[in-house]
């Protein structure tokens, strides 16, 4: 200490001088200080503008479609035969296919994802967590086309070997595989939500004589509920928007049925099929793409709004 005592003093003088020096050149930085927010605003506007652009395109082309096919016919029609001599454009088979495949996916991903999250955040030792979390993220990094292939060439044959009545292309297999794909997302986001619940709350519960399991289910999960709901919504959005897996493994039959052993088409798979060549610009089938896309868009929008409402309503603030 005594040997250093001279040094800080010398420094103090220098620092003072340097600050004075810098202060005189501040005027230039004042301009950047004002310019940067403007630039940032423009950059931030890009995503908003893109959204507006997409909505505009969807709407304008969909309106063309609804001039040919009445809107009520589109939304109540249970038959979709776009390529037939007498084409019929009922979107219900596609909505049905989308809902059923997403439902199957969430039935797989929801429970497994939450249980994984509970295990990772409440029970796993540091060492196990260090191995398991990256593994989960690998699962999330697999391209969807690989999942599609996996559904078609592995899961479907396995299902068919147990239940021979199942079709070669069916909605069950891609639904399950989509669920597997979504597990990491739900597990990881729910785990984050649970880990951020303060330990003081667990201690409060344990100190009352609650077991670890009771603490997890009655304190931690309720406290993390809004985060868990958010992970579910993202999972559902992912399932609804998922394209490749259903395109490959569920075929292109536009069945309107609740039989999960049959082939069904989702909204996304329809868009892939139609835009895959057959639709010349200006034809009814071409415009139907936009009508389906618009439906899909509204679908996800409603779901997101609903989820926001639910998660706000059940939020436990701490």
């Amino acid at each position, binding site marked *: 200490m005594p040997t250093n005592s001279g040094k800080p003093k010398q420094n103090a003088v220098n620092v003072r001088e340097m600050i004075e020096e810098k202060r005189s050149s501040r005027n230039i930085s004042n301009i950047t200080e004002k310019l940067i927010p403007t630039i940032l605003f423009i950059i931030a506007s890009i995503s908003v503008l893109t959204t507006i652009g997409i909505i505009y395109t969807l709407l304008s082309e969909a309106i063309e479609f609804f001039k040919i096919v009445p809107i009520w016919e589109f939304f109540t029609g249970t038959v979709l035969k776009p390529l037939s001599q007498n084409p019929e454009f009922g979107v219900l088979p596609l909505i049905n296919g989308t809902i059923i495949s997403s439902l199957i996916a969430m039935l797989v991903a929801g429970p497994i994802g939450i249980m994984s999250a509970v295990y990772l955040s409440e029970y796993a030792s540091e060492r196990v967590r260090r191995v398991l979390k990256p593994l989960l993220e690998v699962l999330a990094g697999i391209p969807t086309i690989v999942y599609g292939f996996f559904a078609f060439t592995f899961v479907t044959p396995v299902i068919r070997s147990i239940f021979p009545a199942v079709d070669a292309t069916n909605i069950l297999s891609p639904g399950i595989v989509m669920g597997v794909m979504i597990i990491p997302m739900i597990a990881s986001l729910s785990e984050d939500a649970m880990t951020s619940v303060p330990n003081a709350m667990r201690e409060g519960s344990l*100190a*009352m004589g609650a077991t670890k399991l009771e603490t997890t289910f009655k304190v931690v999960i309720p406290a993390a509920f809004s985060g868990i709901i958010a992970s579910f919504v993202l999972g559902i959005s992912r399932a609804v928007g998922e394209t490749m897996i259903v395109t490959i493994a569920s075929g292109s039959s536009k069945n309107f049925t609740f039989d999960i052993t049959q082939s069904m088409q989702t909204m996304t798979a329809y868009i892939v099929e139609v835009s895959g060549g057959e639709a010349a610009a200006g034809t009814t089938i071409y415009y139907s793409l936009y009508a389906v896309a618009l439906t899909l868009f509204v679908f996800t929008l409603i779901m997101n709004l609903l989820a926001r409402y639910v998660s706000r309503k059940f939020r436990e603030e701490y």
Partner: protein
Amino acid sequence: MMSQSSVKSKRPVKINPEAGSFKEPETAGKVVYDTKELNLWYSETHALKDVNLSFREKEVTAIIGPSGCGKSTYIKTLNRMVELVPGVRTTGEITYKGKNILDRSFKVEELRTKVGMVFQKPNPFPKSIYENIAYGPKIHGIRNKKVLDEIVERSLRGAYIWDEVKDRLNENAYGLSGGQQQRLCIARCLAIEPEVILMDEPTSALDPKSTLRIEELVQELKKEYSIIIVTHNMQQAARISDKTAFFLNGEVIEFNETNTIFTNPADSRTEDYISGRFG
């Protein structure tokens, strides 16, 4: 007694198990907690060294000492909450009403329903005021709404917070002030009718007015509960406790009637600490 404590503080190589157990007058209440030769390690850190203490029914015992002296560790050992820290090891014995709670076969949940705890920072659950109080009874199987209503009211009255919250039982507990939250936590504790209440610096996060209210509450609770309170506030210990234990570097330096500790301490280190020379 005084000579025993000073001998102990010099850490003799051979420890007489009776050396630190202080003889109480026969008129005192029954012993609830008896700690014998307790040692505790956090991985390599020796946090508690040969602790010998016993607590009696319907008394307030204060545990004082400078930061890092092991007083919080000790109180958390009394309901085994200390086990939540990875790498904790203990030797020795703590008996609660004659049963060794450090025994692996001892059911820790059972202990914790009899020994409530109030923490340093108020930690209500992010639920309604009502649900906070009803939580304990509910996990122990009480489902009857009428019974729960009664428990909630009685507990909140017991913690002197009923009048402040009776009209907002369904509001989130986090809307309360810090002092109210802490009294809510005490009420939550009372809801399962414990025999002992452990308080780990319950007023350190509170303003003087809320602190005073908690101290008054402790005086009231003493009539029915045994209270062990860790505090870094010596005046608080002097105001509210019947007995005081002074911890330093993981050892019990002195344990005696609060009056004696504060007016006529046996150990010079106790005197230095309570007169503010360190800590």
